[in-house]
């Protein structure tokens, strides 16, 4: 079932290597296959000119003789030269293959474009007819027509061509649909471009490559179908040889002269394989992310620290993460999703990890759990639980730790549960696997767990499927699953983000109550600072895969040092804001983790950045509160800072920022603009905000 290839990117996107390296991207297999096809075409075209015996000359050599210098493919039962017969057979196969593809294309492409572009009634009619065509027994149809109307080249070609039309319609319609929805097409239509010019200028070039790819695949299909007809004696009649016919003729003498079957079979196989390969490689060109048979692989640029490094185990730490790194190889380069993160959590405490989307928070959790995605991802650093290093454990022992000592809850309860398994089965599974409970005991315990997380009618919910529950209920179920084997550390990755506001509070209360009852440690990932301020004992602020500030919640919120933390705090909407106050955002975008900026990774967006920030990466320095650390050369609220003149104040421009010029006292040029970093006004807001959040 060939899927219609979908294209994800506009072909004229500037960052796409368009023609550069086309040869290499197609791969050697493509060129080998194309070469074979060219050879077969050439031989078919010049079959009469080649110095070979005539294909119907009997006793050109001894009958049934194997390959020899005189007859490279040997001879058949009547002593005819097989190479000559195969070469002439190629005329039929390729003629029908190419002809049927052209016929299918000529009839199917316009109908497909029409259905995909016009949609509505036109589409319904064309696709309805297509449905009927699918239910029609195609092979019987082909056999009947050829048998009744005569087995001639034209008839075979016409039948196979007509049979290929529905597939062409589906392919072209699918591709057209994708592009007819794209902005550049809707824009052209809205601007009043005539349909015909839109079709030719915008859609046709985009449909061309998938169509070219399918032309080769369709040719392969047709050659096989023609072979089948010929095998049944229903293609071009003797004396003209056909590949299917040759294989059929060779069958009776298979025992004594296997070459008579094997060599035509081999030629046919190679031709079909080549056509399929050429089609496949062309299709792979349309898909930037996944390139068919040979996915792009890259090694990480920087080798990760060698194991064997010893860390000081902090006193009383239940979980200690030391210098954790996760690097993911991608076609664009190595993404440093987690880059040297350290923190500790004690029993009965909550550690919050905050940062924008894409700062590496979720990847950090997965990395701590050892669930690094995909092949080729590299993890470095250490994770200690009760002083024992987990990174060196065998997969089996790590699974034991995961099952009995860690629990995890993810952001979206819609995707966190397996959609095709009942709640009861999913909930009982870890109990049976890790605690060795029997089926009955596991069910009973599962029901208790559901009750303990506040699920009403737990016995009934056990029999339900996830889609039958509300979002809040599902998140309770995932929490129950995370708690089922009595974990010591609960990892909650934005557990309330996808939930209603009213449900959020319930879920957070539930997590806190469980933490107190079970004396667990909780690692809470959140971008909601109000939640963090209320529930966390300690906060880790992440930016570009690194920790930029961390410390006790009160100290961090009240005596913020790192400008990024400050910007995060300023971005929280406040009740004291006037109505219709523009939402404060952090200017600029999070950096590309495959190509992070030099120096402090926040400097391109930082209004206080100076020359040193773009060159030297700041280490984590201690603030006056014990345990409060920050990574900044010019931290806030200390004498070290002298705001730079930001000039244009775009907030994203990294060149020339703060290199020279006098500085206004404590007043960055960007201040006061909504959507930018806070100025002095916002600093006073900040205190109020922190107070109100402290509740």
């Amino acid at each position, binding site marked *: 079932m060939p899927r219609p290839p979908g294209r994800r990117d506009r072909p004229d996107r500037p960052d796409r290597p368009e023609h550069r390296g086309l040869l290499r991207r197609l791969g050697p297999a493509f060129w080998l296959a194309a070469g074979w096809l060219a050879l077969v075409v050439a031989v078919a075209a010049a079959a009469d000119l080649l110095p070979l015996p005539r294909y119907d000359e009997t006793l050109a050599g001894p009958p049934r003789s194997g390959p020899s210098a005189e007859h490279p493919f040997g001879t058949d039962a009547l002593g005819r030269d097989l190479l000559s017969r195969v070469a002439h057979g190629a005329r039929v196969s390729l003629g029908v293959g190419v002809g049927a593809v052209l016929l299918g294309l000529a009839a199917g492409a316009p109908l497909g474009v029409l259905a995909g572009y016009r949609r509505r009634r036109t589409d319904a009619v064309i696709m309805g007819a297509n449905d009927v065509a699918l239910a029609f027994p195609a092979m*019987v149809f082909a056999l009947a027509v050829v048998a009744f109307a005569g087995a001639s080249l034209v008839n075979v070609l016409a039948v196979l061509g007509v049979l290929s039309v529905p597939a062409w319609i589906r392919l072209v319609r699918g591709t057209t649909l994708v592009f007819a929805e794209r902005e550049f097409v809707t824009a052209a239509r809205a601007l009043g471009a005539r349909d015909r010019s839109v079709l030719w200028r915008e859609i046709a070039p985009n449909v061309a490559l998938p169509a070219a790819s399918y032309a080769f695949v369709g040719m392969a299909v047709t050659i096989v179908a023609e072979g089948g007809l010929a095998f*049944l004696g229903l293609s071009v009649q003797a004396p003209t040889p056909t590949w299917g016919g040759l294989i059929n003729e060779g069958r009776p003498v298979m025992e004594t002269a296997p070459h008579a079957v*094997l060599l035509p079979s081999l030629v046919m196989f190679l031709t079909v*394989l080549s056509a399929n390969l050429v089609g496949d490689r062309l299709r792979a060109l349309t898909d930037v992310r996944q390139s068919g*048979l040979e996915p792009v692989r890259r090694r990480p640029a920087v080798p990760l620290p060698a194991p064997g490094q010893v860390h000081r185990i902090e006193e009383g730490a239940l979980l200690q993460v030391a210098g954790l790194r996760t690097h993911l190889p991608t076609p664009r380069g190595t993404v440093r999703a987690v880059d040297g993160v350290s923190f500790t959590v004690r029993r009965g405490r909550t550690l919050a990890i905050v940062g924008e989307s894409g700062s590496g928070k979720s990847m950090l959790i997965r990395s701590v759990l050892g669930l690094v995605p995909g092949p080729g991802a590299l993890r470095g650093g250490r994770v200690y639980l009760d002083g024992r290093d987990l990174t060196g454990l065998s997969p089996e022992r790590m699974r034991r730790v995961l099952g009995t000592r860690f629990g995890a809850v993810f952001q979206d309860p819609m995707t966190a549960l397996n959609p095709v398994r009942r709640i009861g089965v999913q909930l009982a599974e870890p109990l049976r*696997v890790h605690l060795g409970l029997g089926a009955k005991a596991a069910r009973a315990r599962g029901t208790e767990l559901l009750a303990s997380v506040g699920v009403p009618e737990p016995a009934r919910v056990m029999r339900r499927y996830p889609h039958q529950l509300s979002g809040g209920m599902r998140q309770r179920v995932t929490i129950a699953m995370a708690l089922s084997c009595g974990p010591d550390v609960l990892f909650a990755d934005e557990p309330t983000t996808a939930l209603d506001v009213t449900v959020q509070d319930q879920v957070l209360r539930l997590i806190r109550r469980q933490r107190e009852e079970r004396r667990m440690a909780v690692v809470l990932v959140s971008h909601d600072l109000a939640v963090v301020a209320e529930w966390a004992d300690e906060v880790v602020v992440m930016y570009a895969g690194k920790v930029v500030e961390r410390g006790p919640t009160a100290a961090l919120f009240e005596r913020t040092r790192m400008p990024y933390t400050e910007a995060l705090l300023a971005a929280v909407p406040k009740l004291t804001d006037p109505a219709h106050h523009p939402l404060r955002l952090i200017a600029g975008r999070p950096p590309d983790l495959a190509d992070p900026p030099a120096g402090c990774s926040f400097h391109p967006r930082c209004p206080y950045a100076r020359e040193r920030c773009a060159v030297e990466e700041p280490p984590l320095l201690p603030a006056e509160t014990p345990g409060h650390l920050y990574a900044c050369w010019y931290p806030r609220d200390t004498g070290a800072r002298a705001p730079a003149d930001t000039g244009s104040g775009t907030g994203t421009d990294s060149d020339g920022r703060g290199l020279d010029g006098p500085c206004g006292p404590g007043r960055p040029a960007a201040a006061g603009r909504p959507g930018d970093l806070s100025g002095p006004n916002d600093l006073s807001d900040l205190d109020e905000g922190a107070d109100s959040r402290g509740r």
Partner: protein
Amino acid sequence: MTAVFRAVRLLVVLLVVTFLSYALLSLLPGDPVGQILGGAATPEAHERLRRELGLDDPLLVRYGSWLGGLLTGDFGTSYITGVPVLESLADRLPVTLELLAAAQLVALGVAVPAAVAAARRPGGPLDHALTAICFGLLSTPVFVLGVLLILVFAIKLKLLPATGWTPISLDLGWNLTSVLLPAVTIALPETAVYSRLLRTDLIATLQEDHITLARARGLSPRRILWRHALRPSAVSLVTAVGLNLGAMIGGAVIVETLFGLPGVGRFVVDSIFARDYLAVQGGVVLISVGYVLVNFAVDLAYAAVDPRIRRA
């Protein structure tokens, strides 16, 4: 409501397909009278027989009366052999059904474990090898495959019979040996399709949150692949199995010919060669009804695979 709509739709498809094939067969040159009487008969004899058989009536009338007979279970009697078409089909159907069932069993039995193994390490050596093998299998015409299998297993190794059919009622063991080679011939290209589809869907499923969470619960890769990932990934596979079954009821022609099996496909081909219109028409009905039934079965299978579909 939707079930009724679907049923009506499939019925319409059935009517259109049978009518089109009826019309097509009538429009094509050649005519059964010539076949029955042979070359020597007089034009008057032709004329008389045409009238007797009702071939002079308009197309719609003939189709109508044929359809009417169909509804009462009368597929007509072959002009050529004098055997009721329904009886011939009933003789042939078990052979085709057994062949298809055996082929699907082999194909799924190989494809599912292969796909699971490949999806465990996408891009690994096993995955690459499987990709290459599948590509090769998909490029091998079924008659080439069949001839090769006969050459190796029947002629060189002499393990299995090259052709022929033993009904189950006669001898189970011989029946199985006679179905094995043709079933494998049909199954190998299907194995390639199935394992590619399932591998792709499995890899997509394995990216999902619930799988990461299952890993976070310390469950073994084997348990996750077989118990957590397989079922949610099986929808495309079910569709492909359905399409293949639907197509194969009439499409096993080549394999049945190659291995000398008295199945439906072979019957239809023989009838086409004999210009036995009613027999061909009966075969078309059987194939179309099979397609429609398989469609229904696939819908039921979706619901079994994914409980979210049961709501509708």
